[in-house]
């Protein structure tokens, strides 16, 4: 394969070029209520070529080998067009030339598990909620995505890496009269089929929450002090801070760039945030990004002060900061963009009980239900929560959505617990052409945040 890719690259007239060929193998088994709606194993493949010429950089995606020549010409032409119109020529930061083949260690290779066994496992999980009268329906899917990546550039880097993701996702919908409530299912990882085994207790717990929500009261809209559980605090970190540590989102927003200068104090003393795609066995793991840069941990914030940023080779030069290995694509249909690997709030010392005591009166909110960032504003939902009175967990509440401002909220983090947990599934959408990162991993301990706007329904 590399010889073929080498031939394609050799025909490109450019200062720099790279090509990524990927075979994407996908297995899906999905149930909608009692009905099995999809089962199958398939593979697709395609190429992404990037060309840098005279300071202009462009990319082209193609799925048929015969289009390689045409793709190269179109990438060259577009790069020339950019070079004539761009504010500042693009220069790629220097990186190590790498020749490597990396296949991750799996606890259990999903490719070796028969489809019938996978089907029975998913059916068993799906039956857990459906046993209950007030569970209206379910959507439970097993997804297996294997990216077999071949990366080659004109600097001599040649990398073969496999990314293997297994996940169990979906939702449980409870129903009582015209009221419906939903709880999301998310389990999985990057270390093989083991990541989706033994989830019966997890499904049982989620079913109980879905049923309890039918009796919960909607939260009253207003401003609250809140404890986030690790899942919610992880999404908060991702949405409210992580995206604006991605250099491409700031690159051409001079005013925000000024606010996000390294060394600026942005968060409270207790807040330290890291992105580390090198954590073995975690969902966000990868060895090389889709520019062929070796991944490494990046300390983004220490005690409230901005200390680092996630970069592509292009933005590292533009910002004069170190290359971080964060330029990742969803698959062969997209050029890479800057993505978080495994972002997390580093643990502090208080226990969960101590945080409850510190909160006194407020809300204890659990598990994210989608989140989004736009500029300095963010919004995300919590799947369920509890009113806290005098440091004690009281009644359950539902319909919880939180909105805030990045700069204000990071300073309102009052305490960080000692129980760091990382997410087992991802799915962050980003980009002018939306790309979904299934391996976007986030985490945190329990965290106490003051003055949050909570919208009820």
């Amino acid at each position, binding site marked *: 394969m590399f010889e073929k890719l080498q031939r394609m690259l050799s025909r490109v007239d450019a200062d720099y070029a790279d090509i990524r060929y990927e075979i994407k193998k996908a297995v899906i088994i999905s149930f909608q209520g009692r009905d*099995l709606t999809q089962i199958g194993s398939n593979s697709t493949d395609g190429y992404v070529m990037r060309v840098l010429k005279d300071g202009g950089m462009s990319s082209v995606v193609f799925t048929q080998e015969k289009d390689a020549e045409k793709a190269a010409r*179109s990438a060259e032409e577009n790069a020339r067009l950019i070079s004539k119109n761009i504010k500042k020529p693009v220069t790629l930061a220097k990186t190590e030339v790498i020749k490597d083949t990396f296949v991750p260690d799996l606890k259990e290779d999903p490719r070796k598990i028969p489809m019938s066994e996978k089907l029975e496992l998913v059916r068993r999980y799906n039956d857990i909620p459906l046993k209950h009268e007030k569970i209206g329906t379910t959507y439970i899917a097993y997804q297996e995505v294997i990216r077999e990546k071949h990366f080659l550039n004109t600097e001599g880097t040649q990398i073969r890496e496999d990314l293997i993701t297994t996940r169990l996702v979906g939702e449980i919908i409870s129903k009582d009269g015209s009221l419906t409530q939903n709880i999301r299912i998310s389990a999985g990882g990057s270390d093989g089929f083991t990541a989706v085994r033994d989830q019966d207790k997890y499904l049982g717990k989620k079913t109980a929450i879905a049923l309890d929500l039918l009796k919960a009261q909607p939260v009253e809209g207003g401003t609250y002090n809140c404890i986030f559980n690790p899942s919610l605090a992880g999404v908060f970190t991702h949405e409210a801070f992580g995206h604006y540590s991605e250099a491409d989102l700031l690159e051409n*927003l001079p005013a925000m760039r*000024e606010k996000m200068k390294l060394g600026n104090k942005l968060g409270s003393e207790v807040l330290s945030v890291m992105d580390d795609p090198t954590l073995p066995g975690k969902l966000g793991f990868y060895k090389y990004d889709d520019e062929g840069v070796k991944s490494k941990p990046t300390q983004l914030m220490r005690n409230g002060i901005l200390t680092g940023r996630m970069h592509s080779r292009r933005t590292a030069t533009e910002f004069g900061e170190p290359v971080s290995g964060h330029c990742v694509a969803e698959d062969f249909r997209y050029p890479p963009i800057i993505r978080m690997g495994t972002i997390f709030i580093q643990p502090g010392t208080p226990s969960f009980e101590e945080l409850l005591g510190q909160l006194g009166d407020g809300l204890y909110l659990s598990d994210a239900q989608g989140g*989004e960032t736009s500029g300095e504003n963010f919004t995300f939902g919590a799947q369920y929560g509890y009113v806290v009175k005098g440091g004690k967990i009281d009644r359950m509440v539902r*319909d919880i959505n939180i*909105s805030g401002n990045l700069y204000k909220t990071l300073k309102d983090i009052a305490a960080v617990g000692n129980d760091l947990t990382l997410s087992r599934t991802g799915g962050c959408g980003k980009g002018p052409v939306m790309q979904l990162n299934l391996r976007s991993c986030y985490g945190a301990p329990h965290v106490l945040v003051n003055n949050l706007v909570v919208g009820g329904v």
Partner: protein
Amino acid sequence: MEELLQMAKKACDQAEVYSISYDDDLVLFEDARLYDINSKKQSGFSLRIIRDGKLGFAYTRNLINRQELLRNAQDSLEGKVEADYQFPSTPKPTPLKTFDPSLESLSPSDLVEECNRLCQLLIPQTDGEISAAAYTHVEKIRIINSTGTDLSMQSGEYGIYANMIFPGSGVGIGRDFLSKKFERFPQTLIQEMTELFRKSSRVVEPKSGRMKVLFMPNSMMGINWRILSGTNGKNIYLKVSPVASKIGTKIFDEKITIYDDPLNDARPKARSFDDEGVACRPLTLVQDGVLKNFFYDLNYAAKLKVPPTGSGYRTGELFMALSADPITLKPIPALPHLVIKPGKSSLTELVKQIDRGIILEGALGPHSGNIPNGDFSFGVSPGLYVEKGKIVGRVKDAMVSGNIYEPFQQVVDIGDTLYPCAVWGWVPPILCDDVNVATKN
């Protein structure tokens, strides 16, 4: 494709081959300067087979090994996914004007020129950054099945977008313009953007409460999702739609009429058949506030023993639709041509009717919350605050929330202009009364 169909017909009771190819060019401007150009040329094939009432499904990028593709589909039959439907026998429909040949000669360089022109017009109006993008998308679809159906179409779309960003916030006022061919970004949209931007430069901190909310088209994606969740044949079958038993009853204010308009080829991406070869037709979901119809693909129509509505598309749910790879997806009920009927008032007239309220220019978190139930809770992104019919500034850190079956019962007025709404459809601005707005105060 014919060869694959013949092979598949021998191995099963029914077969369908779907193919799609598309060419895309996208130019991106950041801070009013060209930043990136992406081009894409992609194609693929998808096979559905039915044997003994069970479905087999497989796909590939390159139709090199037909045997393997068929084998993959046959293997998936083992899972016993029920398919109680027949692939349709659809005669060739009257062709729609979905493709303007001039689009093929529109180059990235032309897109760059138009974005440049647009940025130059906007620069004098703002101290903040301007982002812009323009694209062309040309796609060809062909569907053949074992009943003899052989349908094909080519469609083209040109789109351009500009956003004026409030300095230091990353949030702005943006407008999209879509067409079947190149057209200059309309002056009316430029005026609308610049006026809203200028009037909302000051940050204000109004008190929480129930007030009027003007849902602008950029904020309607999440509302559309909830309307479509309630009327989707799948959710009727699964009994999770809160309006499943409400056909013939009033669910929204009588000013609201919602319909699917696939045959209207004045707009880009019109369709005479859906992604499973069922003929498309206009379909009214809500007429004067009264629920009239649900929409179905072949699968859920068969399960509910009702006729399909030509609404089977190979797309994803919610945001997933934005990165959907059609060949890898089975059709599901979807309405890409949703329209909410416009009213008669201009934007200015709508704003004048707000004693105290928010113009919701953009909604953050449309995918958050209990969508099947119709609940929504959007962060304002941005929200413009109005008092006594005048925009007085913009609000930060506020949420607009409710259940679509409530504020849309109290519609004050509807705008006279349709705008494109991301995933999916065309909608006017809609002014609702008594909506919950939570702020820091």
